[in-house]
C-alpha cells in the first residue's frame, strides 16, 4: 500500500504522520463472541495529532476493536501499548484516566438529565456544579460547539447531542478521541463544522480515531486509514492518494456490484397523492406534520431526504395507516381516498410498507420468519388466514420464495427473526413486501446499517419493482443511497416537506441547505 510519507504540500499542511512513537498501539488483538471471531489478529498504531480513519463494512469488526481500545470489551489475546507502555484497559473509566475519550455512534447520553449532569457522569469524582456548567459553556464556545449547560438532553437536536458528547470528551483533556460514525446523523453543513473542530483538535496534538464508511469524507479529513474486512486488517492506506473507488474496493474486497438504473423515462399514472397532510403529533416529543404535498407516479422512486427526527417517523406512520389522517382525502392511493383506512385495508388495496426499525416494528424478534410473514400478509387476501385460522404452511412457502429471491442467508429453514444478521433480516423484511408485487411501496431507511452487498441487492430490487409498475417512496437519511436510486427528491425538515425536484438537478449541498430548514423559510416566504 502507498505509505503516508509522500510529501505533498497538502499533507504537510494537514499535520504530523508517520515518524516517532505511536500514541497507542494495538498488537495482534483477538476477540471472540462464542463461535464468532470479531477481531482476528488485528494490529493498529495511531500517532499523536493524527486523524486516523478506521474503515470497513458493517460487521468488519471496527466497533469491537474500538470497544477494546476504550475498555468496554476485553480481548481474548493481544496487547495494548499506550505511549510505549503495555497497558491493560479494564474499563472505560481506566481508558478515560489514560486520556482516551469516545464519541459514540448511538449516543451514550441520558435524556432525562441535563447537559451538565451528563458531562459530570463522564468525569471522575465530579458533580453537576455551577462551576462545571461554566466550564462547559466556555469550552463549548471555544470550539465552536455552543451548548446550554442547563438544557435537558431530550430537548436537544441530534446535532446538539453530538456536541454534548464531544464537549464531554474534550473536558477529559484526552490525547485520543475515538469517533464512531459521527457524521451519520448530521447535515452536510453540520459535518463541515465538525471537521473544522476536528482539524483544530488534531493541530493541538490530539489524535483522532475516525470510524466511518463514508469514503469521501475520509479522503477530505484523514491523514491515514486502516481498513478492516471480515475481522482482519487488510490494508493501510493514505486516503489522500487513494480514490473513493480504490478505498471501496479495499473495504469490500471485490468490485462492488453497481446498482443499475435507467432513469424512469416512462412514467405511468399517479398512484400516490398526498395533499395538505397535516397531523398533530400525539407523542410528547414528536414532530407534527405540516401541510405535506407529494405526488408519485407508477414507475418512479421519490426519496424523502432529511436529518433524523424531522418527522420521518410520523410521515411513515401516516402513510402506512398506523396513524390515521384527520381527513380521508389527505392521502390518495390509486385514486382511492385512504387517509382514514387502517393499515390492512391499505395493504388489501395493493400498498406495502417497510418501516425503519427492523426488529420490533417490521418484525417480531422472537418469532420465526414464517410467523413474521403472517405479520404483514394476513390481511392481504392471499389466503394466509382463512376463517380466523392461520395457515403457517403457506407462510413458510413465502419464506422460501423470499429467501431465494433475495439470497437471505439463514442457518435453519425457519429461524427466529432475531437470529438473522442485520443485512439478511433487512433483505427478508424488504423481500417480504416486494415479493407481493405491490403497486405502492413506502419504505424507510431500506439499507440502514446493512453491508454493501445486501444494500446493492435491496436497492436493485426497489428499482426493478418501480420499473415493473410500482410507485415507491423511500424515506432515507443516506444521501448516497438517495442519489443512487431516486428519480425525484424531496426534503423533510421540522415536519415540512420541500417540493420534490428532479434528482439530476439537485446536489448534496442543495439538499443540505433544505435539510437545515430551507423548506420552512421557503414556506414562510410563499
Amino acid at each position: 500500500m502507498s505509505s503516508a510519507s509522500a510529501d505533498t504540500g497538502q499533507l504537510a499542511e494537514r499535520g504530523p504522520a508517520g515518524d516517532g512513537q505511536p500514541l497507542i498501539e494495538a498488537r495482534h488483538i483477538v476477540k471472540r463472541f462464542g463461535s464468532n471471531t470479531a477481531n482476528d489478529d488485528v494490529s493498529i498504531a495511531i500517532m499523536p495529532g493524527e486523524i486516523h480513519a478506521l474503515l470497513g463494512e458493517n460487521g468488519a469488526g471496527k466497533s469491537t476493536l474500538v470497544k477494546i481500545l476504550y475498555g468496554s470489551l476485553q480481548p481474548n489475546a493481544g496487547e495494548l501499548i499506550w505511549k510505549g507502555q503495555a497497558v491493560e484497559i479494564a474499563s472505560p473509566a481506566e481508558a478515560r484516566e489514560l486520556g482516551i475519550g469516545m464519541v459514540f455512534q448511538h449516543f451514550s447520553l441520558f435524556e432525562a438529565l441535563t447537559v451538565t449532569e451528563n458531562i459530570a457522569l463522564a468525569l471522575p469524582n465530579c458533580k453537576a456544579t455551577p462551576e462545571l456548567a461554566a466550564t462547559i459553556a466556555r469550552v463549548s464556545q471555544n470550539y465552536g460547539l455552543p451548548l446550554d449547560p442547563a438544557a435537558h438532553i431530550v430537548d436537544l437536536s441530534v446535532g446538539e447531542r453530538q456536541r454534548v458528547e464531544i464537549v464531554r470528551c474534550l473536558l477529559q483533556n484526552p490525547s485520543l478521541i475515538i469517533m464512531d460514525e459521527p457524521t451519520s446523523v448530521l447535515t452536510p453543513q453540520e459535518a463541515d463544522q465538525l471537521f473544522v473542530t476536528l482539524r483544530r483538535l488534531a493541530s493541538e496534538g490530539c489524535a483522532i480515531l475516525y470510524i466511518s464508511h463514508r469514503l469521501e469524507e475520509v479522503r477530505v479529513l484523514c491523514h491515514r486509514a486502516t481498513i478492516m474486512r471480515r475481522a482482519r486488517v487488510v490494508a493501510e492506506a493514505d486516503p489522500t492518494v487513494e480514490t473513493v473507488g480504490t478505498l471501496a474496493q479495499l473495504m469490500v474486497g471485490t468490485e462492488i456490484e453497481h446498482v443499475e438504473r435507467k432513469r424512469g423515462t416512462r412514467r405511468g399514472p399517479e398512484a400516490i397523492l398526498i395533499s395538505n397532510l397535516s397531523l398533530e403529533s400525539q407523542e410528547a416529543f414528536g414532530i407534527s406534520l405540516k401541510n405535506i404535498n407529494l405526488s408519485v407516479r407508477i414507475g418512479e422512486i421519490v426519496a424523502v431526504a432529511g436529518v433524523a427526527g424531522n418527522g420521518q417517523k410520523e410521515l411513515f406512520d401516516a402513510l402506512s395507516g398506523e396513524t390515521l389522517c384527520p381527513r380521508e382525502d389527505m392521502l390518495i392511493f390509486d385514486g382511492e381516498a385512504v387517509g382514514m383506512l387502517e393499515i390492512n385495508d391499505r395493504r388489501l388495496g395493493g400498498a406495502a410498507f417497510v418501516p425503519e426499525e427492523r426488529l420490533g416494528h417490521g418484525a417480531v424478534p422472537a418469532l420465526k420468519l414464517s410467523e413474521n410473514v403472517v405479520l404483514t400478509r394476513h390481511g392481504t387476501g392471499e389466503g394466509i388466514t382463512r376463517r380466523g385460522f392461520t395457515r403457517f404452511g403457506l407462510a413458510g412457502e413465502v419464506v422460501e420464495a423470499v429467501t431465494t429471491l433475495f439470497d437471505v442467508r439463514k442457518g435453519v429453514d425457519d429461524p427466529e427473526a432475531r437470529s438473522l444478521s442485520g443485512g439478511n433480516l433487512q433483505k427478508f423484511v424488504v423481500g417480504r413486501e416486494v415479493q407481493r408485487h405491490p403497486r405502492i411501496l413506502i419504505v424507510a431507511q431500506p439499507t440502514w446499517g446493512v453491508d454493501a452487498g445486501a444494500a446493492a441487492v435491496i436497492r436493485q430490487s426497489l428499482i426493478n419493482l418501480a420499473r415493473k409498475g410500482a410507485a415507491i417512496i423511500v424515506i432515507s437519511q443516506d444521501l448516497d443511497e438517495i442519489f443512487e436510486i431516486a428519480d425525484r427528491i424531496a426534503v423533510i425538515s421540522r415536519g415540512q416537506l420541500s417540493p420534490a425536484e428532479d434528482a439530476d438537478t439537485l446536489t448534496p449541498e442543495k439538499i443540505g441547505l433544505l435539510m437545515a430548514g430551507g423548506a420552512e423559510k421557503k414556506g414562510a416566504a410563499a
Partner: protein
Amino acid sequence: MRIELVKRAEQSRVMSYLSPVIAVVLTVVFAGIVFSLQGHNPLSGIWYFFLEPVTSLWGIEQLATKATPLIIIALGLAVCYLSNNWNIGAEGQLTMGAICGSILPVMAPDFVNPIVLPLMLLMAMMGGALYALIPAKLKTTFGTNEILTSLMLVYCANLFLDWMVRGPWRSPQGFNFPITVDFHEWAVLNAVDIGGLYLNLSAPIALLLVVLLAVVMRKTLMGFEIKVLGQSPRAGSFAGFSSRKMTTFAFALSGALAGLAGMMVVMSEIQKLQPVISPGYGFTAIIVAFLGRLNPIGILIAGLVIASSYLGGEAIQTSLQMSSKVATVIQGVLLFFVLACDTLILYRVRFVSGSRESANA
C-alpha cells in the same frame, strides 16, 4: 465465582420443556430442606407433601376440585400476560363473578328451574368480565397502571362480598351468621360418578377450555395477535392489531373465566355465599400461569401440581403436625425457581472465576 449470561441465538427448545422440570426438582429439594429444618425426615415430608395426597381416589377427586378453578383462572391470566396486560386482580373478579352469579338463587329462591344453572354461570362470567373491565378501561383511556388498580379492586370486591352477606343478602334462617340462603337444587353442581371417581361439571369444562385455548393460541390469527401484541406492540400495530382492543379483550376474558371459576367453586363446595369463598385461587392461579409457561397444556399440568401442594399442605398438617403455611411458602419458591429457570431458555449460563471480576471492578 460469578454467573455470566450468554445470549443464545435462538430459544432453546430443549430448555423450554426442561426448565419447569428443573424448577420442580429444585422446589422438591427446597421442601426437603424445610422439612428437615423443622425436625422431620425430609423424605417422608416429601412423600406426605407431594405424593401421598394422590394415592387415593378421594385424593384425586380433591385434586380435581382444587385444580379446576386454578386452571380456568390461569388460562385467562395467560392470555393477559402473553398480551402484556398485567391483571393480578383475578381474586376480585372471582368474587364479583360469584356475587353476580348468585343473584338468581339468592334473590329469587323460588325460581327453581334447570335454566338457572346456565344463567348463573353466564351472569358470573359477565360480572367477572365487567369488574375486570374497570382496570382495562382505566388503562386504555388514561394509561393508568393496571397492576395496581386491578389489585386494589380485589380488596374492594372482598369487602363488598363481606357487606352483602352480612347485610342485604344475609339469610333470615342463618342464625345471624354471615351467610346467604342455601342454593336450591338447580343452583348447585353435584358430583357425578365416573367409574368410581366423583367429579362435577367443572372438571370437563376446564378440560374443554384448555383444548379450546390451545387451538386458539396455536392455529388462529387471534392467538397470533395475542402473542405479537405482547412481545412487540409496535410490530403489532404494524400488523394492524390494536393494543387497546387487546387489553379490553384480555381483561374481559380473564375476568369472565375468573367469575366462572368462582361461581363453580361456590356452586359445588359451599352452595351459598359467605364472607370468604376462595382460599386465594385468584392469586395462586398467577403461579399456575407462569409455572405452565403461559401455555394451555402447561397450565393444565401446573394446575394439578399446585393443587397437589394445597392437599400436601393439609396432609403434612395431619400426618406431621406441620403448619399448612408451608404450602404457601413452597408455592412462592416454586414460582421463583420457574422464573429463574426460564433464563436457561434464552441464555446459556456460564460460571466465571473471580479473577476477571476483580479486573472489572
